[in-house]
């Protein structure tokens, strides 16, 4: 993978408008259970750095709060992301970054699906298959070079 040559040289950068949720009255009430919601998941992934540019996935509108679906009681999370261009060869890597981030952050009970948003990538099915195949993901994470790249992308997300 040659990441010195950029796939998308000049991506559209958006102004970040996400505001912190703020402290709610129930936040310190131990009797109230806070369910995991899309906002919480979005908060985990929005600051991941793009593999190509020193910009976050939020700034590039690769991730979007509206494209995250969470069903806490059924332990299911679906994250859809939008590559900046339809032929983006970084799509799989971005998806992998999101997967690793959620793997290290969400409660283990959740089944996480990561998908390219429908109609936004030319090899959508292929990327989706790659991202949701446990063995392929595990194999990818054994590649130390790849893991370094992912860790760099995730360094800003903590």
């Amino acid at each position, binding site marked *: 993978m040659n990441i010195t040559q950029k796939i998308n040289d000049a991506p559209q950068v958006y102004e970040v408008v996400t505001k912190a949720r703020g402290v709610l009255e129930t*936040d*310190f*009430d*131990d009797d109230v*259970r*806070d369910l*995991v919601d899309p906002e*919480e998941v979005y*908060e*985990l992934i929005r600051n991941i750095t793009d593999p190509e540019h020193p910009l976050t996935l939020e700034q590039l509108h690769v991730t979007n709060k509206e494209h995250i679906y969470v069903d806490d009681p059924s332990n299911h999370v679906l994250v859809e992301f939008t590559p900046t261009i339809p032929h983006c060869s970084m799509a799989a890597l971005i998806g992998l970054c999101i997967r690793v981030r959620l793997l*290290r*952050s*969400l*409660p*283990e*009970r959740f089944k996480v699906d990561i998908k390219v948003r429908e109609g936004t990538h030319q090899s959508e099915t292929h990327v989706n298959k790659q991202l949701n195949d446990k063995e392929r993901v595990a194999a990818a994470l054994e590649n130390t070079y790849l893991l370094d790249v992912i*860790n760099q992308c*995730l360094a800003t997300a*903590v």
Partner: protein
Amino acid sequence: MVVQRLVDAYIIGLGDNSDNSELLEKLIDCITSGDASLLELVQALGSYLASEEASRRSKGVHVLSEVLKGLPETAIPIQAISRLVQFFCARLSDATCVPYVLTAINALVRLPAFSSQYSIDVLNALFKEVHVQSFQYSTRSTAYQLLELVIQNHPESAKQMGDDFVLGFAQMLDGEKDPRSLSVAFQLVPKIAALVDIKNNAEDIFDVIFCYFPITFKNRDGDPSAISAESLKAALRSAITCSPYFGEMAVKPLVSKTSATATSAKIDAFETLAAGTRTFSPDVYRKVLEPLVEQIREDVFMSSEEAVVDAALETLEAVYSIIKPESTSSVPGSPMDTSDPIADTNDSSSPLDYVLKEAVFQLTADEIKNSEQVGRILRAAARSSQYNCSVVSDAVIPIVIERLDSTEVLTVRRELMDVLNHVLSASCDVDRKAECLEADKINLLNIYRPDSSVPLDKEYSFLHITRLKGITLLVLMPDFLSVDEMAVALQTLARASIERNEDENVNKEATHLLIQLSQSKPEQIQAVVLPMFFSALRENVIAVQRVSHLLNALGAIGVSASKILVPVLNGLVEIVTSGELAPPHCLATVSTIRKMIEAIIVARDGASMCHELISSVVSPLSDWVHQTAGKSTGEHAISLLVLEIARTTVSTFSNLDSESQQQYLEPLIARYQAVATTAHTEGAESGSPHIQLLPLFASAICSCWPQTKLPVDDLAVFIGNLSAVAVTTNSQIQRDASFEIIASVVNKTSDSKQRSALAQAALDRADHAAEPCSLAHVLLRNWLARALVKCSDKRGYEMVSWLLEQITSASPHATAAAEGFSIILGDHDWSVTAQTHGVIKVLSKQRFYATVVPQLTSQFQVGSDAVKTNLLVVLTNTVRHMPKSVLMNGVENVVPLLLSAIRLTDGGLKAASIRTIAMVIIESPDTVQNELVSSIVPLLITSLDQNGTKNSVEVRRTACDALALIPEKYIYPVVQSTRKDVLRALTTARDDRKRLVRQDATKAFNKWLSLGDS
């Protein structure tokens, strides 16, 4: 003989490079005291001064110059000056002597007897004989210094020399490379230009200075020359722009430098051009106007650096401000170009054409590009003068209006409005309305009229914001809107601020614009906008979020302009006292009033306003709450309201002087004394309204200066009564208010005996009134300890010992005594605080820490489990309020106790202990390294457990935070053995039922996961 000996020794010393300061002092003393004369010195130096050998001559001149420099004015005879000047002028041709000759001449120039003729002789010799640039820096610097001294002390001689002086200076400077000398020389140029007519030699002097443009200089760290790149740049700029004779030569090359690739050179060229407009003739700019405007346009459109754009636009404005109109604009299609009286139909070109033609082209194109940049250029050109503003407005506004009429595309409309706003803002800046505006008034009003067809959603919020800005500009335009029209405009802005928009940026912008307007149109804002806000606030049904938005907006408007402040405050007070607001809204409003008052007291001279604020805000609110207390509103709501009003009282009352405080206290005491000194007992109706208001009384008394005399007959009796009431009352509010007053009064009593007597009176009356050792007795001692410990009174420590004794003897109120330690050191709104003039001695906290902690440690060794728990509560309460610097001193003794506190306490105390441990980890990780793996980490892991009752959300979060610190502060081998356990615990914590805990656990987990990676 003495002089000869000294001179010889000095000369020998010069040869050896030894320190001659002592010899020099002796020589100077000798001449000053009259033991020897200057003539004798010269005679003694004779053989050296007349020597054939250059080095001997220079040594002789060196000694003479040093002595002359050190001699006082009176020690140099007037008749000697002439001889000395002659001698030194002759010596200037002797290159080896020049450095010392110049020092000597500088010493002579300072003398009052040094005449202008001498100056001329010296300068002529200097310019003729000395090639300054062939000498080292110190000599060159002395030469420039000489010129500076002559200009300062004998300006007439410079005038008399005229061209010779200018030419001599130019030759002297030619080839100078040292930035320190350049800085001095550049500063001399404007002085010379002001003194001498430089017309004949303008080119020479200009060539010598302009060759340095653009000047760059990097200051080395620790360079003692103390010149900066900026000061050098400014000196060169003022030199280049100091004379109109330089204009012709400077402007053209400066314009060509504006196309430089280096940003700093570009900005420098623009700024120098702008500075030149103050002295250069407009004609020189007129000649280069076209390429200059072209370059400015290119930079404004293309440059990514805002500093370049700003410099370019400022230059454009400065240049247009001096170019006088020869003819008016004749932009094709402009209806106004023939109606102007100054119009000259024979000459169709105007200086503004260079700007206008391109702008008109852009504005009439199908797709408007760079509207922001076009607008900014037009604005800069228009604000250069009132005339130019009219020309630009006449040329642009009709085109924009026509285009706006014909287009429905919202993005195009927004861009056109943006340009229009820029042009209108120029009218506001030059404070003159363009003539075309009157003709197009109706059209303009229509453009900015809210368009109901445009949805108020996020997509169009930019259009709405642009429109609101335009409305603001119309309001600010001098003599443009009629009173009614202005009212409509302000109503539109107010509605945009008040009504709920999908994009809250529209609300924010509208509020921001109203704040701006409130500074220039306070009367109109008061008449039109405030009533709308107040009536919106009165609508009881509105959501809490909107109320807070309205109150924030009102608060900001009120604080921004002093004229509106009082009406806003009065309006809010009226709304509160009218009783129309729902209790939560009422509380929010009072809270806004308090915040406004706090803001203006910090920002302005608070004391002068406090009288007015008390009479118009605090008193009506207090009266109102006095009347309404006990009526339908809930008890809890009232107590919160009272608390807010009490805080407001503190803000205002504490800023009064003691005499005014006394005046206000009298009615207050009359109103509340009876309530305060009558205990509320079981038989009385619960929640008596007057008792609820006691915080108002307490806050006012606690805000007094120590010298304010309380209007009571006998202070000890008053304190005693309060104490008796506090221990017998059932009302917690009454008890707390009594303790607050007692603590404040005792603390502010300056005489230690009297203070002790007051404290004793309080204790005695309390023991008398109720059985000793009740909970209230414990609390009384906690409060007295607060009052006395803060002013470092030893009796405070007696109270502390008493409290510790209660704890160790396991009395029934041991827990209360332990928890009461938070009273001693904790924050309070008004009792014994710095804001309310409490007497707080420096190092009082340190003393407390040094006294109490050893006692705690020793008691902890022997106490039972229950005692230990209470001692840990005391420890945590002590530690949490200690400054870090105090705490870190001897922290190793406290750590074991803190670990026990984590084990034994729960809730806030446990969290506080974990926080302290975390602080120790940050500040002094080595101190706890031994306990880290064995004790701290396991304790933190147990604190993550969400199933027990001991670990509140706060505890779990602080445990996560503390765990997150460990990988940052310790190396992998130290914590490696515990990593697996921590990761396992944090994985569980990532599924905590509280979101905040999950977030913190995730952060900590990722830190531990990457531990050892690098």
